[in-house]
């Protein structure tokens, strides 16, 4: 184990993959300078400009070139820095990358990772603060991961690069600089396996990405109130480790689903729906959702705080599902 930041852990994983397999190349804006969040720092020194490719501000072509390279023998990792910029490449992500294998009858795989930074960070305002996993998870052909800590950041990026399908790798901006212990050398976290962060019997909290950190805090507070929550960090949204979720909820009978993305039509809706459909008879109370209020993310701190949830909202939701509010 070595302590490093989430961002460094992703550099570690990428370096490992690039050393292991020379088909791995990375594409993105400003990445030879390390990228907007240092997620590519140092790679160009070791691997050169043929493998660490500075792209023009042409998001559509970053993805299209990724697809073209992926289906002809490379394993590209494409970067969009802010997740909102993926919207300029949505056609390539959805109509090409996600559908290529299926619509061509399984002739090819598209081993491509799309990295994008999401979430709020200190008032970045409407076009630089969104969390868009709800879009990607709905679209068949894409895998989607959203780690919450440096060790998972490394392990999931390794798994994503090793995967033969397009994987959207979402890294929350607020945790990119957060440090934690990371296994040295190779470290893989398989896609589709949730982590139970905390055992508890009163309710289950299902979450991922930065919200998993808020939830840890919420769980401590809840303990102080005599409530023991089981905390599940999904890590991977597609494929989704629903079994882990269901067996926990079947035990606790109560569930809070939390994410930073907008609540309405968000991934939490899918979680609540799937849980309700599958273990309805075990539910002792209505599930409660925590997510952003339905507004573009505002700039001003008091407004941002009002729209985007954190630990307090999880605590309140937990108390609600426990029937205490």
């Amino acid at each position: 184990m070595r302590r490093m930041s989430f961002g460094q852990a992703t550099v570690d994983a990428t370096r490992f993959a690039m050393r292991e397999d020379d088909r791995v190349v990375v594409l993105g804006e400003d990445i030879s300078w390390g990228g907007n969040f240092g997620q590519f720092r140092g790679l160009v020194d070791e691997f050169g400009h043929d493998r660490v490719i500075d792209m023009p501000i042409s998001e559509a072509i970053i993805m299209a070139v990724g697809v073209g390279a992926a289906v002809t023998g490379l394993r590209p990792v494409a970067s969009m820095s802010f997740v909102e910029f993926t919207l300029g490449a949505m056609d390539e992500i959805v109509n090409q990358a996600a559908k290529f294998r299926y619509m061509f009858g399984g002739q090819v795989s598209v081993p491509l990772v799309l990295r994008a930074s999401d979430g709020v960070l200190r008032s970045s305002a409407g076009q630089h603060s969104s969390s868009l996993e709800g879009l990607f998870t709905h679209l068949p052909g894409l895998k989607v991961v959203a780690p919450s800590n440096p060790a998972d950041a490394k392990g999931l990026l390794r798994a994503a690069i090793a995967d033969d399908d397009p994987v959207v790798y979402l890294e929350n901006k607020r945790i990119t600089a957060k440090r934690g212990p990371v296994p040295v050398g190779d470290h893989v976290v398989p896609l589709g396996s949730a982590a139970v962060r905390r055992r508890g019997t009163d309710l289950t909290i299902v979450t991922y990405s930065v919200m998993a950190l808020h939830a840890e805090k919420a769980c401590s507070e809840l303990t102080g109130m005599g409530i023991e929550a089981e905390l599940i960090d999904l890590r991977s949204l597609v494929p989704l480790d629903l079994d882990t979720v269901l067996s926990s909820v079947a035990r606790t009978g109560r569930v809070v689903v939390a994410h930073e993305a907008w609540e309405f039509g968000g991934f939490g809706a899918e979680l609540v729906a799937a849980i309700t459909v599958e273990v309805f008879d075990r539910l002792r109370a209505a599930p409660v959702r925590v997510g952003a209020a339905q507004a573009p993310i505002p700039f001003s701190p008091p407004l941002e705080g009002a729209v985007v949830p954190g630990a307090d909202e999880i605590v309140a939701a937990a108390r609600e599902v426990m029937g205490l509010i």
Partner: protein
Amino acid sequence: MSLTETMSPGLALSIHRTMVRIRVFESRVEQLFKAGELPGFVHTYIGQEAIAAGVCSALNRDDYITSTHRGHGHAIAKGMELGPIMAELYGKETGACRGRGGSMHVADFSVGMLGANGIVAGGLGIAAGAALSARYRGTRQVAVGFFGDGGINKGTFHEALNFAATHRLGVVFVCENNQYAQFTSRLRTTAVEDLSVRASAYGIPGVTVDGNDPSATYHEALEAVARAREGGGPTLLNMETYRFGGHYVGDAEVYRESAEVEARRWADPIVRWERTLTDEGLMKDGPREAVWAEAAEEVSAAVRFAETSPYPEGGTALEDVFTGATAVPATGRA
């Protein structure tokens, strides 16, 4: 300069054969579609055969092409068998894409045909990516991105050409300028008359070509492909042609006079090429007819193959969303 000074008789005849195979294939597709035999909708390549046939003759088997919604001609010219294409149009399990893709998504990666594509200009960045990959792997493969006069106004055209030009990638961008995008004349939507001028925005060669003359399409492609292969970067070829049929089969064509279509018939690329071959003494009536007859037989065989092939089983509908062993339903539960 006579044709034989610039092109071997064998090549000239092979291009002819390809054009005829495309024409006969597409005419049959039109018939079959009108007869209700084919699901979906189809866009035929009739009138543009000299482009696919000429350009693909300048390519090696392991070179790449990306295609469009009007992709049957490219598929045939790049070397796909007719049977799997036709079976794909029928939606059969023996189709090139196991019936998953249909007319707009015919592909065969084993011959470098990286897919017809239902998104206008969708193939251009993919071609650039394939060229980047070839450069990286050191294979000297070239990629051709076919697109239309309508596609030239899509942002991806710009992004792809700028990227390919900056990196001097081995791509040839072939605009099949058939004068219309669906129902709309290019003159109504495009700021320049001569589309080849757009090359100058990327510092690359841009050439306007008689797209109905296989000698021209072949030679211009050959030059561009050679440059691409040698690291000289991309070229934009504006190949002027005309779509004899509707945008899709069934199009009522209210947007153009039939007189306009008729006036263009003089430039039918196959008629012209046959006249050239005949004039140059490369082809006689007998062999000419044999090519058509052979193509008709081949297409009939493709139809028989398609007709007698089974449909995919509904139960296989979720295969190949993801790759092999990593395939998982979204729920993570098998």
